């Protein structure tokens, strides 16, 4: 009795965010605390809600392209990919093979860039400052390569309906190959610096365990789901583009703690490199854009397209009404479902562990809020 009274008195609320370095953006989490223990973390979203869905419905479909690059800006090309593929499926547009290869190469490069950024930022949350410098160093190389074909560093709108905007040249291939070699060499550094670091392991192992059932109930996808041991990757399970032609593995974790999610991402970088290598080897000649009617008509009816973004399953759902403007455009973003398990996962843990869990989810807040 006395103890419960004592606990009642010690209960207090703590606002984490919206301006907090380890929420990776403007996310507010209202924590009900008891001393150092979190009783109930409740995320509050909407601080960066930018009406993407409304904008998708209010102009002809090519006008939504720039928005796709701004939802998840860390890994924008898969978002481009999903959207162009959706319209291509809806309007029945063929894509030349070379264009599909270019899409895969650039998307995978972007995925690596995203994972490198996450690696740095996660370790920054855990108190290690050095890895982010290494991560950004490698990332800048990717950005240079991508900039040479897409023309921007971050918010790409590179793909077009029926192809891509610009062809890649010998130089691009050469630089990409050089980069692959370089990143393979850098593995050792990350391994020594991070993966075998005892402090890092202590802060991630057995923390924030997501069971497979929990992942199912919350609809988690991407590396967060694979960390729990379920091998689910849209590139394999629901193949799109030319992914079935490549030989790559889907790394999975054992028990779904923060360390597993970390390991899955790090091993995924290697698989991305493998895909890029194979694609560069087999890169076919040919046109990069097919003939597309100027005014794309979206026939009545709905249509769905799912791709694997860096954080999980990204699904575009479109309802057409016979005009070129989508009647309804829903974007299912991975981080939204991934974060929604936090109230259950974060009950009764220590506050520093919450930071560790949040970091391991690889959140991008503007993607969640759309």
């Amino acid at each position, binding site marked *: 009795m006395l103890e419960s009274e004592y606990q009642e008195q010690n209960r207090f609320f703590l606002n984490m965010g919206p301006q907090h370095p380890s929420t990776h953006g403007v996310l507010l989490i209202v924590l009900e605390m008891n001393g150092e223990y979190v009783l109930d973390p409740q995320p509050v*979203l*909407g601080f960066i809600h930018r009406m993407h869905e409304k904008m998708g419905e209010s102009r002809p479909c090519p006008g939504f392209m720039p928005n796709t690059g701004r939802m998840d800006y860390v890994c924008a090309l898969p978002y481009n990919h999903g959207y162009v593929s959706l319209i291509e499926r809806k309007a029945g547009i063929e894509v030349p093979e070379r264009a599909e290869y270019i899409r895969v190469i650039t998307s995978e490069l972007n995925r690596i860039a995203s994972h490198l950024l996450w690696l740095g930022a996660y370790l920054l949350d855990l108190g290690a400052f050095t890895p982010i410098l290494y991560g950004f160093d490698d990332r800048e190389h990717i950005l240079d390569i991508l900039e040479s074909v897409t023309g921007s560093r971050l918010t790409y709108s590179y793909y077009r309906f029926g192809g891509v905007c610009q062809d890649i040249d010998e130089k691009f291939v050469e630089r990409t190959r050089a980069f692959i070699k370089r990143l393979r060499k850098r593995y050792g550094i990350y391994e020594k610096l991070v993966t075998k670091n005892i402090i890092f392991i202590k802060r991630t192992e057995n923390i924030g365990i997501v069971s497979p059932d929990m992942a199912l*109930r*919350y609809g988690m996808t991407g590396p967060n789901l694979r960390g729990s041991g379920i091998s689910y990757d849209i590139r394999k*399970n629901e193949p799109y583009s030319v992914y079935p032609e490549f030989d790559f593995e889907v790394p999975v974790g054992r028990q779904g703690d923060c360390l597993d999610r970390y390991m899955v991402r790090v091993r995924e970088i290697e698989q991305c490199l493998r895909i890029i290598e194979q694609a560069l080897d087999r890169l076919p000649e040919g046109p990069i854009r097919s003939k597309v009617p100027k005014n794309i008509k979206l026939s*009545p009816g709905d249509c*769905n397209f*799912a791709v694997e973004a860096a954080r999980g399953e990204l699904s575009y759902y479109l309802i057409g009404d016979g005009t070129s403007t989508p*009647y309804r455009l829903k974007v299912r973003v991975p981080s939204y*479902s991934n974060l929604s398990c936090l109230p259950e996962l974060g009950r009764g843990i220590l506050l520093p562990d919450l930071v560790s869990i949040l970091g391991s989810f690889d959140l991008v807040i503007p993607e969640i809020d759309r």
Partner: protein
Amino acid sequence: MDNIIKNFKGFLIDQGFDAVETDYEQRGYHLEVVLTVTQVREFAKKAYELGFYLVFVAGFQVLADPETPSPHSGLAVVYQYARHDRQYRIKACALVPDSLEIPSISDIYQGADWHERETRDFYGIVFSGHHNLKPLLMADMDVDVHPLLKEEAKLKSLDAVSWPSEAPESTE
């Protein structure tokens, strides 16, 4: 694994669900189900039992049609389910009655919690039984603003936005 799909389809037929197989290449999902308001929870329960996960819940608005046998408010909710172990996607759609109320599935799939709150934000659909139906993406002062509702002039009828012929999306 095919057993699961068969099992599921058998269940759908037994319980009198209105389900149609669709062309994946064309639409991006394999099965289309039209639910009535009472079937929403039943369907979700079965899907959870068989290991489907919830992809998203979303709303959309069409022109309300008073002619149909069971009048609806013009709002509809789309549920999408998929599987981890094989390629199978289901789209389920339910028209919201005039009371704007539809049962919540957030106790079956906890992930639906935020999706439903978001749908309430955008369309004002009330998910009865939801434990915490507060604004999620919109600011607190905008409780009654539903930005994705369209103007009357821009609304299309349900038939005008569904696939022709083989998808009879009436509300029977």
